C-alpha cells in the first residue's frame, strides 16, 4: 500500500491506494484528484476571498 498526502492552507487530501507500492501510480491519481480543489483555492486566494483555516491573531498597531 502506498499513501500520498497533499496539504495546503486550503486543500487537505489524504489518498490511499492499494495494493500498489509504485510511487507514480500513487502520485498521479492523487495530483489529478487534488487539482480541481487546488485551482479553486488558488482562485479564491487571488481574488482576496480565501478561506481561513487557523485562528492567527495579528498584532498590528492601528491607532497611532
Amino acid at each position, binding site marked *: 500500500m502506498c499513501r500520498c498526502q497533499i496539504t495546503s492552507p486550503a486543500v487537505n487530501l489524504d489518498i490511499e491506494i492499494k495494493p500498489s507500492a509504485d510511487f507514480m501510480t500513487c502520485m498521479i491519481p492523487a495530483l489529478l484528484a487534488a487539482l480541481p480543489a487546488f485551482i479553486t483555492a488558488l482562485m479564491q486566494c487571488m481574488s482576496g476571498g480565501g*478561506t*481561513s483555516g487557523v*485562528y492567527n491573531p*495579528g*498584532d498590528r*498597531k*492601528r491607532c497611532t
Partner: protein
Amino acid sequence: MSPDDRALTRFVHANPHIIAAWYDDPILPTKIIAVDDGSPTPPITIPAHELRSLAIEHRNGSPIRILRTPATHYDPRNTNQACQNEPISAGTQIQPHGANWLGTAGAPVSWIDSQNARHWGILSNWHVLADQDERIGRAIHQPDTARPEFARLSAWSAPLPTRINRIDAAIADARIDGFHTIANRILSLGILGTTPLTATVGLAVSKSGRTTALTHGYCIGVGASVQVSYGDFTVTFEDQDVYAGDNNDFSAPGDSGSLIVGRSCLCPTSLLFAGSDELTVGNPIRHVTTAMNLLWPFN
C-alpha cells in the same frame, strides 16, 4: 383563570417597567393592566413555557427601536468607543464603510461557511453591519471609518416586515492580510464561557457595548413577541429575550450588536438589538447560532 393567565398576571406585577402585557392570541386576546407604583420588585422565576408568545406594551407607548446611534455622537472618556490595536476586543464601537451610524462589535465568533471552511470574526446585527448595503466584503472599521478596516461583511440574516422574524444578525470575517484582527475577549468582560446559555426569567446578565459600556441586568421575559421600529418600517419578532437593568439603563442607542451573557459563566445568551426607555430586547443566541452556523467556543 387558566394557568397561563395566572403566569401572565405574576409576570406583569413582577415588572413595574411594564404596564400592560397579553398573550398574542388573535382569537381571544387577554389584556391585563398592571399597577405601576414605581417600586422595584424582585424578579420571580416563571417557567419559560408559560411565557410563550407573550407580547409587551410599554409605559407611555414608548416604542422599541433598534439601538444604533448617529456617527456624530462620541464620548472620549468611554473606552468602548476608543480605537483598539490588534487583536481587537469585542464590545467596542464599529462603523461600516459608507454608514452614518455606529454600533457594537458584539462578540468574537467562529463559523463554518458553505464550503466547509472555518472563519473567525465578529457577531453583530444586520442593521449595524449591513442594513440596505448588503454587500459581501463590505469593510467594517473600528472605531470608525477614520481607522483601517478590521473585518469584512460575510453573511447576514435580515429581518423583514412581511414576515415574523427571530433574528437581526450579521457576521464579518476578521481575517485581514492573513491575520485575524479580533481577539477572543470582550472588553470589560473577558473571555466568553464555552457554552451558550438559554435565558430564563430572573437570569442575571451582563453586556459590554459601545454606549453604556459594561452594564448588568436580569431577564424579565422570554418567548416575547415584540414590534421593533427600524425608522422607516416596523418589524415583528417572536420568541425574544427581554431584559431590564439592575439599577441604570441596561442599554442605549449604539449598543446594538452587543452580546448579552449570563453573569456567572459569561456564557453567550442573547444578541442585543433593540430596546426602549424601560427594557432591552435580544435574539436568543440559539437562533443566531443556527442561522449563522456559529461554533462555540471561539477557538
